[in-house]
């Protein structure tokens, strides 16, 4: 079989894998978020919807039922683990309410536009090694969907479109609270893309490439495999991390949906599956941003002594994928932790932090990086 046929098939498989895993992390993340917040707040969290087999004793003949301890008969596999499924079913059966004053086109387009670019941008994320020799057949598989040279630039170009969905949804609802939420969201996401981009520029200058896989190789091959940019560019990593929270509209930057102020923000007027799509898009954006942070600053799929960056074996590729997944989950948990700890900024304070603190810092960081690189070269 010629190489391009193999590559085409492999790309289709990779696309299915990435979307499948990302879509399955979302319910896991919702469950984890609810459980972790419950743990932090002295609550129990969801524990009603279980994977229960019922009373397993009734599977046995009557004479053997007493032999099984009663404690085993009500065995629950991870209490509350089916809660996200129950939520999704509930949302699917909700009445679809469209406000009378809504702009129908924008209203229906909003959730889609919020979700699709975010899911598309995942194509640029390398979730494993770039040198997997497909079962020793000589076909080298790059474990990311789009092996495009534009790399992070393409990723940003696509994922930034998501803000149009929020703006369209808020504006198209024809209601006041969503309008305010949409205006806040647009202003916030555009503002925080500036320091984020500047922080990224410093990282790009350090690596010398915009290719996402090149970021990982640079980090995996310097400083004994620990040349992660979080150590080489700590300030850029910090700025990126803060801007990441703002991009995802998470506390302390969740002004677009600040509940005590704007009820639900831009999705106040949404119900049913359209709301679910907004929700899904938000969590996908979280996953995207965390993957990006892991790829750029935390060494991507690399880990010393576990993953060989130039290895070609299938086991090595599998290990790299698992390392990547583990790193994403850690950063996602960090996001959850911060969300349930900090209060929310006010609008002017948010803008102040973005434009007057983070942009100058990111610029200074970029200038210092450029000077150091120039002197070193």
């Amino acid at each position, binding site marked *: 079989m010629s190489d391009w046929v193999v590559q085409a098939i492999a790309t289709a498989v990779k696309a299915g894998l990435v979307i499948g895993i990302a879509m399955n992390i979302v319910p896991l993340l919702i469950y984890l978020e609810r459980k972790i917040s419950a743990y932090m707040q*002295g609550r129990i969290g969801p524990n009603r919807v279980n994977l229960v087999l019922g009373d397993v004793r009734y599977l046995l003949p009557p004479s053997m039922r007493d032999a099984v301890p009663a404690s085993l008969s009500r065995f629950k596999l991870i209490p509350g683990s089916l809660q996200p499924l129950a939520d999704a079913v509930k949302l699917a059966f909700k009445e679809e309410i469209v406000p009378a004053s809504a702009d129908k086109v924008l209203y229906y387009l909003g959730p889609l536009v919020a979700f699709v670019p975010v899911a598309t941008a995942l194509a640029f994320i390398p979730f494993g090694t770039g040198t997997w020799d497909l079962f020793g057949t000589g076909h080298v598989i790059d474990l990311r969907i789009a092996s495009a040279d534009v790399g992070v630039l393409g990723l940003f170009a696509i994922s930034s479109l998501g803000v149009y969905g929020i703006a369209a949804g808020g504006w198209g609802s024809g209601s006041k*609270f969503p309008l305010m939420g949409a205006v806040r969201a647009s202003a916030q996401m555009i503002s925080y893309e500036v320091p984020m981009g500047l922080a990224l520029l410093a990282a790009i200058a350090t690596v010398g490439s915009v290719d996402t896989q090149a970021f990982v190789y640079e980090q995996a091959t310097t400083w004994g495999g620990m040349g992660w940019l979080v150590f080489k560019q700590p300030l850029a990593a910090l700025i990126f991390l803060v801007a990441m929270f703002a991009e995802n509209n998470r506390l302390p930057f969740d*002004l677009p949906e600040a509940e005590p*102020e704007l009820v639900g923000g831009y999705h106040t007027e949404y119900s049913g599956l359209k709301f679910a799509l907004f929700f899904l898009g938000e969590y996908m954006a979280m996953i995207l941003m965390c993957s990006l942070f892991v790829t750029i600053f935390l060494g991507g799929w690399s880990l010393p002594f576990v993953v060989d960056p130039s290895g070609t074996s299938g086991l090595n590729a599998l290990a790299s994928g698992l390392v990547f997944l583990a790193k994403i989950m850690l950063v996602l948990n960090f996001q959850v932790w911060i969300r349930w*700890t*900090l209060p929310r*900024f006010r609008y002017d304070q948010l803008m102040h932090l973005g434009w007057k603190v983070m942009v100058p810092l990111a610029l200074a960081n970029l200038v210092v990086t450029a000077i150091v690189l120039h002197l070193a070269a």
Partner: protein
Amino acid sequence: MSPELTAAPLAAAPLARAPFGDAAVSLEPGLHEQEMVINFGPQHPAMHGTLRLVMTLDGEKCRHIDPQMGYLHTGFEKLGEHRTWNQFIVVTDRMNYMSAMANNVGFALAVEELLGIEVPPRAQAIRVIMCELSRIGDHILGVGLQGMDLGAFTAMLWAFIEREKVYDVFELASGGRLTTSYTRVGGLAFDLPEDCPARIRAFIERLEPVLQEMEGMLSRNRIFLERTQGVGTFSRQQAIDWGLSGPVARASGLDRDLRRDRPYSGYEQYDFEVPVRTEGDVYARYLVRLAEVRQSLRIVEQALDRLPSGPVNAIGAKATLPDKDEVYSRMESLIQHFMLEMPGHGIKAPKGAIYHATETPNGELGWYIVSDGTGVPYRVRVRPPSLYQFQSIKPMAEGRLVADVVAIMSSLGVIAGELDR
């Protein structure tokens, strides 16, 4: 888009597409600007209870606030004209559901002053304990809600857990958690159960670490400080002018606490301080509430240490039910029981009017009671602290951002049931 183009569809279909108010202000040709009238409440996450603010917004800035009340109007004052003295205690629970005990005590004290009854020392001490516990419950949840309205949800839930423990004590004493109805004219419904003092002491011991944890979450949190310091500032004179009382007034430097200045229920025996701050902003109210929790803990401890023994009802006053054993064995007690319980009888207050105020968690709760000598009051008028705090949102929050309005609102601790009566 030219102004003609935008104006035409508005004129054609005014109801369908004009949700943003009518007052259009155009600063430049082609630029269409208008202020937006927005309806905060009565169903809004930040308007605890059923409060309503009609705000005129210029972007994020709040130009005018029109606080509106009455969405929880239940006619409590009118009910007072149809309920006997003891029956009305049940209604006082429902007024301020955050601190029902303090309301019970306030009303009972007012009626006792009208009747001229002296309550036995044990009942006084128990009333003080219950008042202070309800103050702890109210303030700790108020501080938590302040955090919640600023986005710190976790602090609120920690506060809720402790508030539930206060309610455990109330349940032990009175049988009710939220609506306690614990006092009676001339005493209490029941004596404290034997294990209650130990339970209260255990609660006090557990509370201090939680308080410190909440302070760790909020008091020096940079975001919390920026959101609260200098927001909703009220000077001492303004606090007097707008009739504020309680922690909100004390945060503005008004050193007034009825427990110290006009003691009732034997508050003069206890050693406590009245925390006062002069900043008058949202943060000062937060600090005053936390400090008051600590002072209340001191009072409860002292009251527990010197809890006198004896009856909890003023026996000779012909206003309280006699002991059941005595009803069965002594003629006088049987008659008294009959006189209090039969329809058309009951406590007869002398003709007259009285104003009696107590320091409830929210501030000065005053009862103006007019009696015409029958078994029910002629008029029961309440001076709710929430009313004065709710109306002061207008001068405090006008000209500030929407987020500040929410922060100020939660710092005032307005209870809708008490506000609307």
